[in-house]
């Protein structure tokens, strides 16, 4: 399939500038990665509402919390690794527990960070954030979904984690796409099986469904961009109507979106499930696409896992 590509980080940075004009209470923090996270666009436009804290993510999360106590809408951005791993306790104690209006928008999540290797490839961030009470967790799939997500979270109060990739990603949506927090998007209907994907695995899920169609298998494709609160209704409905589920995410298979889906079907309507994701190992250096290939984050693997799910059902 031929995709057009664009970068979610650009969508974030430029949308933030537009929102900054509309909302004077938006302030932005960064930890020496403002060009990487694209918050430098905001800095250029609103220097008085932007602070670069230097290489000090823990301090950044505390400052974010303090700003939020005064009614500011605070964006704190850095790499996913440092936002959720390095500063976990600060996010927990100073942001999630007091339910402060801080938007943690992290980039460079997952294996597609590429050459930087395991130290920077964050596969545990969804796990860490989804177990925090009060925290909303969102993983946009492409440029336009990122735009819509950033706009939505400004309009809703409370702690939020948004995860973005480093690489350009296939453009699935356009400007007309409507995103709602907690509402999954049904991309194509199907009766035989369901593929639930998030982030940059969504385009691969769409391609996998096309492959399966050639074999006469009708796969439903769902974009689970809000991991928390999870759209449990759409998951239960898919389990009832298609009888089998495959999840696909660029995250450890443990405790990520696939686990969240599995929790729902185990309790509501147990059906066979397979989870495509990083198999509980640390990553390594390489090109993004070859790493996706090496760790099974492929169209081929989604197709294979779908066949397995259908076999389990027989």
């Amino acid at each position, binding site marked *: 399939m031929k995709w057009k590509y664009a970068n979610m980080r650009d969508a974030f940075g430029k949308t933030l500038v537009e929102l900054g004009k509309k909302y004077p209470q938006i*302030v932005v923090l960064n930890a020496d990665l403002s060009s990487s996270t694209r918050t430098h666009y905001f800095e250029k436009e609103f220097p*008085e*509402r932007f*602070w670069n*804290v*230097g290489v*000090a993510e*823990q*301090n*950044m*999360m*505390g*400052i*974010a*919390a*303090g*700003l*939020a*106590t*005064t*009614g*500011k809408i*605070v964006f704190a951005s850095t790499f996913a690794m440092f936002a959720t791993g390095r500063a976990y*306790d*600060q996010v*927990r*104690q*100073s942001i999630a*527990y*007091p*339910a402060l209006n801080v938007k943690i928008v992290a980039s460079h999540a997952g294996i597609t960070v590429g050459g930087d290797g395991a130290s920077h490839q964050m596969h545990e961030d969804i796990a860490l954030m989804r177990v925090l009470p009060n925290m909303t967790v969102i993983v946009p799939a492409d440029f336009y979904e990122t735009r819509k997500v950033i706009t939505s979270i400004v309009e809703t109060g409370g702690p939020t984690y948004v995860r973005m990739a480093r690489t350009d990603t296939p453009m699935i949506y356009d400007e007309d796409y409507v995103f709602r927090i907690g509402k999954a998007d049904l991309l194509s209907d199907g009766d035989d099986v369901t593929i639930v994907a998030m982030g940059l695995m969504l385009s691969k899920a769409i391609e996998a469904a096309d492959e399966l169609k050639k074999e006469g298998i009708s796969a439903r494709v769902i974009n689970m961009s809000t991991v928390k609160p999870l759209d449990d209704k759409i998951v239960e409905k898919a389990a009832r109507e298609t009888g089998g589920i495959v999840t696909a995410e660029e995250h450890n298979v443990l405790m990520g979106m696939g686990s969240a889906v599995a929790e729902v079907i185990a309790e509501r309507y147990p059906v066979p499930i397979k989870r495509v994701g990083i198999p509980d190992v640390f990553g390594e250096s390489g090109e993004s696409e070859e790493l996706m290939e090496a760790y099974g984050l492929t169209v081929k693997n989604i197709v294979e896992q779908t066949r397995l799910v259908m076999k389990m059902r027989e």
Partner: protein
Amino acid sequence: MSQRLDYLKDLENVIPDLEKKANRARKWILKMTTEAGSGHPGGSLSVVDVLVALYFRVMRHNPLNPRWEDRDRLVLSKGHAAPALYAVLAMAGYFPEEELMTLRKLGTRLQGHPSMRLTPGVDMSTGSLGQGLSVGIGMALAGKLDRRDYRVYVLLGDGECQEGQVWEAAMFAGHHRLENLCAVVDNNKLQLDAPTDKIVSVEPLAPKFEAFGWNAIVINGHDFKEILMAFREAEKVRDRPTVIISNTIKGKGVSFMEGVVKYHGKPLTPEQLKAALEELGGDVE
């Protein structure tokens, strides 16, 4: 915005009144922790004089309007001293003093460590050490951005200064010359396990903060005149944040608790409480 009190005026009448309030707060600290069966009386007794000075003389605040936008803020970064903060907030009128005896009990508004969502007058939820100075910075930045003249006070422990985040924050506040921020280190020289200088020394504190761009003042944290003069000096410094190194005695006010490590996190028995209250001049009236 409103005028600040000239709190160095009329000290001969003010100080005895503050001493009386601190004495009452000490009794409440001991009573509520004994009633709860757990809590941190030692570090509450060392910091309580500074809290009394802040809430009854220095800070601009209104118990009838706890979320007043122009109020001075206080972040109790050493959140385990919650009993001291609760006693002072109750006495200031944020909630009834009788409620203090619900400390740490199921369903209470008075959690073991402060929660801004539950307790009127608490400006930030704390408990995990080392985080409050960063939060105070965020409040101070917002004050400058919005051209509000409130001041932000952050209370740290000396043991807490072993946390790396304290120094990340100190570096930022110094760099940005946040003169509306004032930190107090309750330097009681004991931490949970042993004397701080036996575990990992944090001294000398004043030169450390000065090297990070702060104005540092060293005081006896149980002398109200010194406390009030330090806060006044801090207000006058217009080009940098101020840290007050408040030398205190852990367990201050009760002879058998003073300087004793174990009272960091251990309340008195009912018998000890009786003896302590007698030393303090009898139960709360």
